[in-house]
């Protein structure tokens, strides 16, 4: 048998001599007329171009959207609302429906995804007809379109029902601020006995709300926020008298981070 570089190939190694071709099974593509092209180097060069265009888009995405990093994991923060990566959102959303949560959790978490995955895995044995065109096999095509529609719908529902601003705020990296203040001052006494301290922390370091150190706001502005709220802080959160609020506002406006 001839071996090595001198060996002459015609077309593709999978193309058998017509006499040894079996009649069974699908036709090999080489039996169709058409302009075939050598993979190496002709086709690979064109593929490389497509790959390069793809890579440019990929790099633009990378540079324009730096990958997110939230603050270091804190297992004691039980108020944190979790969210998986976007391609798991539809599974996560499924668990929020009544028929798939609570006592039926196993249906939403295991049974439905399990059936879908097994159906996908066993598709070749469920759809055994020789027909390949999608319109000629309505059942597999229909089920797949239904599955895609469900995934898109569930992902959409999950996205619109999630509070993205709150999610961003709850994960933000907080710079550690320390501030020196007189704990016996009237301002701090009023602050620590009001509802402010619940969200803004014992030492103004922040919590659910932002830090109050170095806000750059005047006492009047802080007074207004205490009255009318800001962002996710509703109006009327402060329950005390206007005079006390004025004292607190003046105290907060003096807070500057210490080195």
């Amino acid at each position, binding site marked *: 048998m001839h071996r*090595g*570089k001198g060996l002459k190939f015609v077309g*593709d*190694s*999978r193309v058998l001599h017509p006499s040894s071709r079996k009649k069974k*099974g*699908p*036709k090999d*593509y*080489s*039996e*169709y007329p*058409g*302009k*075939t*092209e050598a*993979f*190496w180097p002709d*086709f690979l060069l*064109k593929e490389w171009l*497509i*790959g390069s265009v*793809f890579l440019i888009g*990929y*790099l633009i995405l*990378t*540079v324009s*959207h*730096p*990958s997110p*990093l*939230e*603050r*270091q*994991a804190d297992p004691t923060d039980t108020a*944190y609302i*979790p*969210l*998986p*990566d976007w*391609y*798991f959102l539809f599974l996560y959303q499924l668990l929020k429906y009544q028929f798939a949560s609570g006592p039926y*959790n*196993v249906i939403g*978490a*295991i049974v439905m995804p399990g059936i879908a*995955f097994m159906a996908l895995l066993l598709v*070749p044995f469920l*759809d055994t*007809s020789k*027909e*390949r*065109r*999608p319109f000629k096999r309505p059942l*597999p*095509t229909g089920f*797949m379109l239904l599955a*895609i529609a469900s995934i898109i719908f569930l992902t959409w529902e999950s996205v619109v029902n999630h509070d993205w601003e709150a999610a961003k705020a*709850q994960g933000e*990296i907080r710079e550690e601020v320390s501030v020196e203040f007189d704990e016996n001052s009237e301002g701090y006494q009023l602050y620590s006995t009001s509802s402010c301290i619940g969200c803004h922390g014992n030492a103004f370091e922040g919590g659910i709300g932002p830090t109050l150190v170095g806000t750059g706001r005047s006492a009047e502005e802080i007074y207004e926020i205490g009255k009318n709220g800001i962002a996710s802080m509703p109006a009327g959160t402060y329950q005390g008298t206007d005079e006390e609020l004025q004292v607190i506002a003046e105290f907060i406006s003096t807070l500057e981070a210490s080195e």
Partner: protein
Amino acid sequence: MLNKIYDWVDERLDITPIWRDIADHEVPEHVNPAHHFSAFVYCFGGLTFFVTVIQILSGMFLTMYYVPDIENAWNSVYYLQNEVAFGEIVRGMHHWGASLVIVMMFLHTLRVFFTGSYKKPRELNWMVGVGIFGIMLGLGFTGYLLPWDMKALFATKVGIEIAASVPFIGGMIKTLLAGDEVILGAQTLTRFFAIHVFFLPAALFGLLAAHFILIRRQGISGPL
């Protein structure tokens, strides 16, 4: 010179058939976008592999700085992101690549499904492909924990609770993944790191090799 080296190796190892299987085959017209623009759908598989290669390379560079331990994991990622030269780019590519690989793989799956390419004789390759899909989702799930930030920890908690709800063996799966029956902590991070960096890639390489060998053996399915 190159020819001489080739001949020297070929004389001993008979590499021409190997070269032929890897590179020296023909591309049929119906999958070539140069002839039919709509044939771009046949690029999705190749692009999935392209992103996978980028994931492997960027992941290898990330491990040069990443420390899989709860004290330092977040700090090492923060340092990588903000201090290391091009660290933001390498991490960014790994982060976005994880999404792109899912997108491309999804599109590739749909192409194979709607062209009916999974039919006889390619059933086995379809099943290998679905296996790769599962491995990729596993890589996405385990990789999400590694930065050890808030979203990582709490998303993983949910994921592990879901795994724990499997009837009968749920508790065992949870212990296997988290390293403890209750706590999700130091053990979990090192386990997820090992799974993400060693176990799943090993399985992925095996399945990818099988995927490609089967493609070379069976060829691309014919035109519709």
